[in-house]
């Protein structure tokens, strides 16, 4: 404990402000997006700052961060910032440097051919995907995070580098339904789900788990305490009533002796129509539209195909400024399913506690065709 320093908090943010930001703090008058990925802010003092936004994979090496710093040193006096969706923003004050910076960013590629710093992510396009740990680091995932994100962004790179959609589309991914990140409030959300109940390791459960915690962790009350005999010894354990289990994996989070991951059972669910801004309509939760797509590493072709399908259908039919959720609610969800050609199944119908409010209690509906997908 000697010489230990604690409770000093993060460094004060203002010490990392570029000089032009420091000088004009609280004095900004207007901004415009001069092209995809490049913003221009004008201050009351007449100062102008250009911001170049570039995509990142979020998971990065120190070499990559050093390269970002090298770029910042070269063009921005060593100043750089990260956004809330893990893009990087470089600030410059004159057009000459802006041009040089853009040229430089565009020229940098990984040996495999991917762009290191693709410029974009502004306005009505698809910006970076907020995502989680996946198979890189977590112990409860049902799907990978970085892999699917790379596959989806590869497919949607044109929407990252352009602003052609009715409104911005936020895509998020969480690898289990803890939903770390923004899955529950994103326009399109990719979520990892299980389809089989947990395996119970009776021999060690009572030593590594606090059984009352396990019982209380179950949202459907499917877990009950039990006693089993192993080699003549009585052991405390639990039993899962499989007809009540919906495979959330909460019990595994609380108890390491109840693993639930399964190569064939696990997969992707797609949710649609959430938002967090208050613009025009109130914030919305995203809603389940595709209950299950199998895991297909390394490129997740079916997931990628459905995300593009939903995005393109939305782009074709929605009105300007309309977010995915606002569009779906305006045309009615039955039309949404028809236009996107998503087969509707009973899995999409809510059956959890407050489900009644999600059913249709009116005569207002459209006749639509049920869609079969080959």
């Amino acid at each position, binding site marked *: *404990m000697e010489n230990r320093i604690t409770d000093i908090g993060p460094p004060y943010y203002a010490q990392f402000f570029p000089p032009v930001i420091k000088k004009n703090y609280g004095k900004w008058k207007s901004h415009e997006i001069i092209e995809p990925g490049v913003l221009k802010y004008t201050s009351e003092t007449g100062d102008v700052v250009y911001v170049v936004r570039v995509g990142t994979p979020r998971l990065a090496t120190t070499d990559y961060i050093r390269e970002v710093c090298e770029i910042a040193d070269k063009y921005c006096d060593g100043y750089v910032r990260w956004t809330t969706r893990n893009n990087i923003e470089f600030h410059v004050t004159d057009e000459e440097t802006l041009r040089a910076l853009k040229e430089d960013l565009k020229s940098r590629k990984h040996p495999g051919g991917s762009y290191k710093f693709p410029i974009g992510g502004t306005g009505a396009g698809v910006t970076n995907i907020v995502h989680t740990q996946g198979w890189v680091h977590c112990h409860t995932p049902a799907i990978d995070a970085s892999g699917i994100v790379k596959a989806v962004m590869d497919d949607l790179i044109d929407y990252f580098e352009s602003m052609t959609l009715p409104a911005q589309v936020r895509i998020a991914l969480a690898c289990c339904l803890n939903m770390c990140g923004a899955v529950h409030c994103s326009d399109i959300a990719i979520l990892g789900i299980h389809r089989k109940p947990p395996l119970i390791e009776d021999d060690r459960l009572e030593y*590594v788990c606090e059984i*009352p915690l396990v019982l209380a962790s179950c949202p459907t009350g499917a877990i009950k305490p039990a006693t089993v005999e192993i080699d003549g010894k009585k052991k405390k354990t639990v039993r899962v009533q499989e007809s009540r289990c919906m495979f959330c994996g909460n019990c595994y989070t609380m108890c390491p002796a109840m693993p639930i991951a399964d190569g064939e059972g696990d997969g992707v669910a797609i949710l649609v129509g959430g938002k967090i801004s208050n613009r025009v309509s109130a914030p919305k939760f995203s809603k389940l539209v595709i209950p299950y797509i199998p895991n297909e590493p390394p490129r997740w072709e079916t997931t990628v195909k459905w995300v593009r399908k939903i995005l393109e259908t939305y782009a074709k039919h929605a009105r300007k400024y309309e977010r995915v959720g606002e569009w779906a609610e305006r045309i009615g969800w039955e039309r949404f399913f028809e236009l996107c050609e998503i087969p509707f199944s009973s899995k999409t119908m809510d059956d959890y506690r407050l489900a009644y409010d999600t059913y249709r209690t009116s005569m207002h509906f459209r006749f639509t065709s049920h869609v079969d997908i080959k």
Partner: protein
Amino acid sequence: MPVVEYKGKKFEVDEDGFLLGGLDAWCMEWVEYVKQLEGIEELTDEHWKVIKVLQDYYKKNGVAPMVRVLSKVTGYPLKKIYELFPSGPGKGACKMAGLPKPTGCV
């Protein structure tokens, strides 16, 4: 799983060094072993009071007490518990008392 040996006793532990055999495997040698891991110089009555409360609560209820309960029963504020166990009530005190490793998004 790894096995640690201390003063002639063998303990099966997990990757974070928590006792796998539960309270059945707990003994004085385990306390000594964790004490030197934790960098605690001497075990005082106050340390023992915390360990005792944790073990009694676990035996009675099957779960480790919440931090507020631990504070209320022992009469020690959280700050004091950190002074006794520098790694805190979970990683320090529970480990020494032989309770299961805390789970969830810690």
